[in-house]
């Protein structure tokens, strides 16, 4: 690569810097499960299944999420970021009570992505809906558009961020499906915590992978999408609702 790079440098300095990154990089790291130099692909569609029958009255998923992502509040529930929250439901007619975690549903047709003026709110090829904080101007139109109240605007200065999870005042954020963990081949923190400390109500997987556990569970028992009337094709599915 080196002679090539030199030639590039001779042309224009700026172009060289940008152009050599591609070829130069491939030498660096070895291939893993999905190697760092392999882009997220449409072959996968990451998703979650939440079995409300197994969801116990705990908040292990919430604690784990906020710990993993360095989301710390100031005891101001309406301005603190809430990437995931436990919701209690009670049927108006019958009084039947349930509890479940609610977070970004990682829609195939996300309203937050449609409305974002700068394209900061986007859907990655593998179905994970993210906010590119580099281009988020903090207009909060996505917060208005989300059917699930899943997005949080950062109302206060932030410090002590996790290296993998940048967060900052004036931008919008939400559940990333622990994209940094998923990219390493791990499961999201909420799922891990639910299986360890909770009711083992959450399954993470690839909705496209017919051999996977998630696919099997969804194939063999009925499940629902929240706000199915909006036809968003959510990546998070619920059972027992």
């Amino acid at each position: 690569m080196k002679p090539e790079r030199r030639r590039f440098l001779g042309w224009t300095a700026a172009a060289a810097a940008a152009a050599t990154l591609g070829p130069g990089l491939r030498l660096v790291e070895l291939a893993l499960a999905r190697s760092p130099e392999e882009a997220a692909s449409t072959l996968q569609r990451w998703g979650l299944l939440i079995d409300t029958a197994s969801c116990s009255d705990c908040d292990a998923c919430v604690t784990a999420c906020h710990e993993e992502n360095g989301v710390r509040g100031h005891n101001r529930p309406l301005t603190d970021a809430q990437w995931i929250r436990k919701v209690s439901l009670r049927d108006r007619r019958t009084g039947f009570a349930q509890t479940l975690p609610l977070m970004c549903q990682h829609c195939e047709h996300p309203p937050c992505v449609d409305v974002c003026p700068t394209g900061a709110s986007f859907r990655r090829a593998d179905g994970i809906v993210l906010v590119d904080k580099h281009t988020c101007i903090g207009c909060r139109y996505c917060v208005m558009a989300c059917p699930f109240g899943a997005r949080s605007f950062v109302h206060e200065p932030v410090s002590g961020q996790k290296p993998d999870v940048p967060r900052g005042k004036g931008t919008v954020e939400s559940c990333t499906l622990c994209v940094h963990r998923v990219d390493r081949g791990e499961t999201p923190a909420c799922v891990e915590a639910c299986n360890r400390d909770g009711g083992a109500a959450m399954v993470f997987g690839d909705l496209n992978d017919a051999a996977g556990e998630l696919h099997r569970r969804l194939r063999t028992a009925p499940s629902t999408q929240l706000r199915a009337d909006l036809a968003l094709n959510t990546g998070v599915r619920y059972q027992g609702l």
Partner: protein
Amino acid sequence: MARIAAAILAASLAAAPLADAGEKRAGRVALPVVKITKGGDCVAPTDEMRRNHMEMLLHQRDRTMRQGLREKRFSLKNCVECHASRDTGSVLGKEGFCSSCHAYASVKIDCFECHTPMRQVPTAGAPR
């Protein structure tokens, strides 16, 4: 020819502020503190880094954010890993690697509004 011209231009651009400052501005503007506590080479030669580090970061930023390509080499995390001060663990602060030069050049850094300026605490057995 073009190559030589570019190299001269680059060298003079990189050296100019330092030479200039040494003579005239030393009394008025604090010189940037470039303390690199970790040895070894950077991901590119120093003059290229001086001129183009922002382009590299920008390019890698979009690859990581949009495509999930987490190549380590030009990642901000990797920069901080080497360049954070041994005393404070940060690239910011009075003698921080990033902040002192940026203060000198009077260019605002937006990275650390969201990203942590701290080196990751090394944990035994961590994958990276």
